[in-house]
């Protein structure tokens, strides 16, 4: 029963990362590739109908986690207190940015919400990545199963870790660049002309960043978890995930070069 719930929550989180990932990515590149107000309106319209549906996956995952694993929910939410509340504020700013932007047709009003939307998307992608980094690195539980992580300590992994250290920041940047290329591919697929050209450029540049940072992060992971290779040797099917990761990275590169944006997006 618990394994079933675990799979459900993992599935919902994966859906969230994939679906909300591209609209976060669109937010990251929003101000870079959308040069004029009308171009930015096109970008917002590209995610307008789907972004809140995508975010329901996060709510659903949170809700399911809450009643299936209350102890885990309680311990992790209180332990990651500050970053979670900051993520919450960023989610709120992002939602308000999208919802309020179109209410008044005034260039200053729109420009302001564009900046809020972009700023919140950039920080969110890094924070979500850093959160993943924390899970990989692990946290020190006390005897009651609770913990508390400050935002940062000395940016080293030991002795007292914080939410942000060199390792989690690397994972944050991996996520940031991955979502950037994910979002850029989506926009390349949904638009044409100048916007599409710029989106493809961003997709290609961020692709190199993803590659470099992924390799860097794998090396970093092996230095803090020296037994990780043994894990993969013990559970050979686990190798599917990193291999799939690199195959789809290669796919993204290939399709993006040859202009097949929809396939690059799916990869």
């Amino acid at each position, binding site marked *: 029963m618990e394994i079933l719930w675990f799979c459900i929550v993992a599935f919902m989180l994966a859906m969230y990362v994939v679906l909300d990932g591209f609209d976060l990515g669109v937010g990251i590149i929003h101000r870079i590739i959308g040069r004029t107000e009308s171009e930015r309106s096109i970008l917002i319209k590209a995610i307008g*109908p789907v972004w*809140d*549906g995508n975010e*329901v996956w996060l*709510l*659903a995952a*949170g*809700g*399911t986690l*809450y*009643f*299936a694993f*209350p*102890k885990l*929910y*309680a*311990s*992790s*939410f*209180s*332990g990651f*207190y*500050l970053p*979670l*509340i900051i993520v*919450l*504020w960023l*989610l*709120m700013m992002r*939602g*308000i940015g999208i*919802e*309020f932007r179109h*209410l*008044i047709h005034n260039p200053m009003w729109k420009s302001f919400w564009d900046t809020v939307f972009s700023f919140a998307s950039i920080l969110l992608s890094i924070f979500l990545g850093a959160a993943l980094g924390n899970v990989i690195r692990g946290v020190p539980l*006390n005897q*009651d199963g*609770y*913990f*508390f992580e400050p935002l940062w300590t000395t940016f080293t992994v030991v002795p007292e870790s914080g939410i942000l250290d060199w390792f989690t920041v690397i994972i944050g940047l991996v996520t940031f660049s991955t979502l950037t290329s994910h979002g850029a591919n989506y926009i390349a697929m949904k638009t044409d002309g100048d916007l599409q050209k710029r989106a493809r450029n961003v997709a290609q540049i961020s692709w190199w960043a993803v590659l470099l940072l992924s390799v860097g992060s794998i090396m970093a992971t092996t230095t803090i978890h020296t037994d990780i290779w043994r894990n993969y040797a013990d559970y050979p099917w686990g190798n599917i995930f990193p291999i799939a990761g690199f195959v789809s990275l290669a796919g993204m590169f290939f399709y993006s070069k040859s202009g097949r944006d929809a396939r690059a997006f799916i990869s």
Partner: protein
Amino acid sequence: MDALFIDRLQFAFTISFHYLFPQLTMGLALLIVILKYLAIKKKSEHYNNAARFWAKIFGINFAVGVVTGIPMEFQFGTNWAQFSTFAGGVIGQTLAMEGMFAFFLESSFLGLFLYGEKKLGQTGHFITAILVFLGSWLSGYFIVATNAWMQHPVGYALSPDGSVHLTSFWALLLNPWALSQYAHNMIGAVVTGAFVMISIGAYYLLAKREIEYGKTFVRIGTIVGLIASLLVAFPTGDWESKNVAYNQGEKFAAMEGLFETKQGAELVLIGQPDMEKLRLDNPLHVPKLLSFLTYNRWNAEIKGLDAYPKDHWPDNIPLLYYGYHIMVGLGTIFIAAMLLSAFLLWKKKLFESRWALWILLLSFPFPYIANTAGWMTAEVGRQPWLVYGLMQTADGISPTVSAGNGLFTLLGFIGMYFVLGVLFLFLVVRTINHGPSLTTESH
């Protein structure tokens, strides 16, 4: 300031601010269905425009309601970790259902309602209005059922690790406490919606613009407002307070300001609780009425606070007492205001009576105050319990979150909500100034 106080203050602040928005959402959802129904029945573009105008305000209000709602679910984990560990297996069910089912229904159909009128046609558009209404009222039910379980736990069993798990999902959903609380709460939301509609209508009439819309808003608002302000007192308010009297005696005694057990207890109208001398200062009361209202007998005995151990008393009795009396007092004034408005409407004098329109214009904040005061009564009165009889509030907080970290986020919420509130008012005032006659279908 210790962590417990900060956690409570943050939850109280964020939930009170949040609930300013859903109460209007739920009230307006019903009123929009009525406007849309009239538009179709009378084949009238006037009512259609009116519905579109209110849908705009609804949309802004809904967006703020959603973004201020997400912090509530978060805080169960961030600030109330021990409570979540203890009760997550039960209340997680209703909260997850609210998040997934009702919220999804509501937000997807709201998009259709706001932007799909041309494509859907009039009947389709009317149906989406009904679905938005159902979605928001269903959302409300799951939240009230969650709170009702904390007020009156049912359908659960204790697990070996000390937490609770659900034994009957239907008992949780059909908790008798939830039914009375829901009825009372939803009618309260309709009062807010009706008063806001009347108030904006009165503004248009007084400002001598959008006069036909002003008349429609005042007329429909008065009819719905009169029915709702009567229903909120009787039978729903009566049902709710009897539930409290029969199940949470100490809360009831504190609410009513009854310090000593009495046969033929009086109903206190005004007075100030003196917690040193344990009595009510400057009381103004109606003899024996409380006994009659509670047990239908003039001389029935009602237990005062002296009948309960002091450590089970609600920990802020004056606040509880005032919250309850403000709610009941305002509720009585609402009935009077609506009777007056309905009488003048019937005599066809309302639209010319500027003094009455001024009263209606200025009335809109008060249902918000009454709804907030009502919830404060429910929640302050539940103390010292977090889950009545099962877990005390002090045992529910997150053990590792310090007061300093809590204050940081509380101040952040205050700042953020201040900006949100200003933005909301700015956008709504702008929509009102724009006026319904210019409100064409948005695309």
